[in-house]
């Protein structure tokens, strides 16, 4: 592997990893804010417990997002210095604004929320979680503006060989960003919904298994209490789980609808902005209208600039045209039509320029790795759809107040937490890999500024050796693997501990409280 390939693996791995934590932070943050608001409004104990329990899991996850986020910012300069030089004038601005206007707010206010339970007036304390979680959504907007500019560079001119911003309004209202933002945010809420659903299901099932909750002849729940296993398996405990479960299922279903609608809008832009990505998503060699359900090829034949060995096994006629053009007849261009167009427009070979390193003068392959784009696209849709169906089924199964007494469904519910996470990752891998060989994709249909593009091969740091890049890749991958185990172990421990894990005061005797009122309500 050379520097470029290592740098790409590193960016891919660190970004996908970072984005395991981010959606849960975004989705769960606002959910916790809503729970605390419900407590503030109604004064009901179950909402306080929900806030504390989900808030605890939120924080265990949040810190990993913070820790891995710094890598994201640093590696543009470290591993992609030519990219940074070329795009800095445009791309740097949203990143700097993210830090100054959003991430500061999120970090500082979250500190206030965590430690402020007994230091702030209730109303202000409630405001801190709202501001922090809204800031995380604001943060996502800035990052997606930056990413969308790589997919669809607008508001920009090339001056002295670098991209310069000429229209900030265009950059910050990029139509790609405006559809990617809801898609990503709904995707994040789908993750939070699945998380609430899976964990609450697990607890309700355990209550049934322990004989605490039973059902009557009509299948309706009879809520019980357990005095032996600690105070937190009382009737309030039941309320926490059933409400969390049903909120989670509802959030997951609504999110899926949002994801689907915004995804549809995205596909329609993609067909104009990056037609090759759409063709590669379908493994469509020839023009057509059908959405492929299964295509096969001899995989090792790929890598070349050809698309002749893909055989469509089964496709739904008209569906691709609907996705792209809202009708069933307009043909969507296939790879074999697009390749000559790209070659004519951008050349068949990379320029013989030292900035391309070893790749200077080599042939350009405009075809993304189709196995990745094709299956990435399908995995995203399948996992997203499955989550939505599962959420609907969950609502139906729990309509009489509790979960069925079935170990297997309970396991499926817990496993289902991974589905929306996987869907998010698959979608991002698809859209980023589908942009190749460009790091900044050209705009074929927008005359005037279509010189704004950059090949990934030109973006990597020329001064950094493969050895250095490999060192950081190995270091980060091992640390990330280790920390993922730590995070998951902690999450499981806190989940198994139930509400008491986040509210130790439930275990203690509340009567002898007066003597140590000075003790911090929360401390590291």
């Amino acid at each position: 592997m050379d520097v470029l390939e290592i740098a790409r693996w590193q960016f891919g791995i660190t970004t996908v990893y970072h984005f395991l934590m981010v959606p849960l932070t975004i989705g769960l943050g606002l959910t916790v804010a809503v729970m605390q608001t419900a407590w503030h409004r109604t004064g009901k104990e179950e909402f306080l417990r929900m806030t504390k329990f989900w808030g605890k899991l939120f924080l265990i996850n949040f810190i990993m997002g913070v820790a891995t986020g710094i890598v994201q910012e640093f590696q543009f300069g470290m591993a992609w210095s030519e990219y940074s030089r070329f795009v800095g004038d445009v791309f740097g601005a949203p990143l700097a604004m993210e830090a100054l206007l959003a991430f500061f707010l999120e970090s500082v206010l979250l500190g206030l929320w965590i430690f402020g339970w007994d230091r702030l007036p209730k109303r202000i304390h409630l405001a801190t979680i709202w501001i922090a979680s809204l800031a995380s959504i604001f943060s996502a907007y800035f990052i997606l503006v930056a990413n969308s500019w790589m997919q669809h560079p607008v508001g920009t001119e090339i001056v002295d060989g670098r991209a310069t911003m000429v229209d900030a309004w265009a950059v910050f209202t990029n139509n790609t960003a405006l559809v990617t933002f809801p898609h990503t945010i709904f995707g994040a809420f789908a993750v939070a919904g699945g998380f609430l659903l899976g964990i609450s299901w697990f607890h309700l099932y355990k209550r049934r298994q322990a004989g605490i909750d039973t059902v009557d002849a009509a299948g309706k729940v009879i809520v019980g209490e357990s005095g032996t296993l600690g105070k937190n398996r009382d009737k309030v405990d039941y309320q926490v789980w059933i409400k969390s479960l049903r909120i989670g299922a509802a959030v997951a279903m609504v999110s899926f609808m949002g994801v689907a609608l915004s995804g549809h809008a995205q596909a329609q832009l993609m067909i104009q902005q990056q037609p090759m990505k759409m063709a590669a998503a379908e493994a469509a060699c020839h023009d057509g209208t059908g959405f492929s359900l299964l295509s096969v090829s001899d995989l090792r034949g790929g890598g070349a600039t050809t698309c002749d060995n893909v055989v469509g096994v089964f496709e739904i006629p008209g569906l691709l045209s609907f996705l792209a053009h809202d009708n069933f007849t307009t043909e969507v261009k296939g790879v074999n039509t697009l390749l000559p167009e790209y070659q004519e427009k951008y050349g068949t070979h990379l320029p013989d320029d030292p900035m391309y390193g070893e790749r200077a003068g080599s042939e350009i392959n405009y075809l993304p790795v189709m196995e990745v784009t094709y299956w990435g696209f399908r995995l995203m849709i399948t996992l997203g759809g499955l989550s939505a169906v599962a959420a609907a089924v969950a609502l139906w199964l729990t309509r009489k107040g509790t979960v069925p007494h079935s170990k297997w469904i309970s396991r499926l519910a817990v496993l289902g937490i991974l589905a929306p996470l996987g869907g998010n990752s698959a979608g991002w891998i698809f859209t980023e890999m589908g942009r190749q060989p460009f790091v900044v994709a050209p705009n074929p249909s927008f005359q005037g500024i279509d010189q704004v593009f950059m090949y990934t091969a030109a973006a990597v740091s020329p001064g950094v050796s493969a050895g250095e890049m490999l060192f950081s890749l190995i270091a980060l991958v091992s640390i990330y693997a280790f920390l993922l185990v730590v995070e998951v172990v902690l999450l499981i421990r806190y989940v198994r501990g139930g509400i008491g894990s986040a509210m130790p005061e439930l275990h203690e005797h509340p009567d002898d409280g007066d003597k140590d009122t000075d003790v911090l309500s929360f401390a590291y």
Partner: protein
Amino acid sequence: MDFLPTLWFILIAVLWGGYLFLEGFDLGVGMLMKTFAKNEKQRRVLLNTVGPVWDGNEVWLITAGAATFAAFPYWYASLFSTLYVPLTLVLVALIFRAVAFEYRGKAHTLAVRNAWDWAIFLGSFVAAFGVGAMLALSTTGLPLNANGDRVGGPFAWFNMYAVLGGLAVVAFCLIHALAFLGLKTDGDIRARAARLVARWLPVALTPLAAWAVAVVLLNRSVVALAPLGLAVGALLFAWFRARRNNEGLVFIGLGVFLLAGVAAIFTAAYPNVLPSTIDAAFNLTVSNASSTPYTLKLMSIVAAFGLPLVLAYQAWTYWVFRKRVTEEHIPEAHNVTPIV
């Protein structure tokens, strides 16, 4: 004079100053976890003096990095790619440190807590040293070619300024943290911290002062003599007050020393943002490394609104958590017991 690039050069200096001032004491507290705290209770007191604020402090680093990317892409690209290996270590350090802050208290055994303490200690040390080395090299020069790329191997950047800058920030963080503990705790910790500050303050501040003097001499900067003089004055003031045990004034003195020192360093380096040690013609300067006036103007408007706001709510946070943290305030540790 390029007005907007100069303004942004100043703003980036302000961001680094803000970062070193704020994260200075939480990096220092991190290093004191293994060297100063006597027992588990004291370690938890230390941790909780910075608990609510360290994450917000760290955002100054992220903002400084992102602002450099936006305002001086060439500076950002050359500096970060040239220092690839040390910055990788800084990232590893910051990752472990952040996670350890949050996860330490969730450990069930003292052995695991001890492991996280090492992560906090080493993470704080490596991050402080690395950031110091990076800033020292940025103000004294790196082996860059005409394109701004490193000439030489992965360690071609290494020289005595890297060591001096690293030491300067580590030592400053330690003394700053001790002064901070004087304001934030009571009892044994407070008393011992005060004694250490009085004894070690001049030694701890010498490397940073030496770095500032070196940059001023290298650039023969007359203007920078003013902030340099202020820094030396603040050092003497802080030392004098430390011997009289005026904790608040010591802390203020240290802050003025740091900010004046950073001002002297950046003023002397101006208009270079990153000199090349290969050829002065390859120097990155405020004019040849900056973004366009359009972008800088946009960013200036955002900063004019955003930075005061950040300062306001961050200051409010320190006000909310102004109470001293003592051993009596630390709740008992609770192990999480599975109910299912």
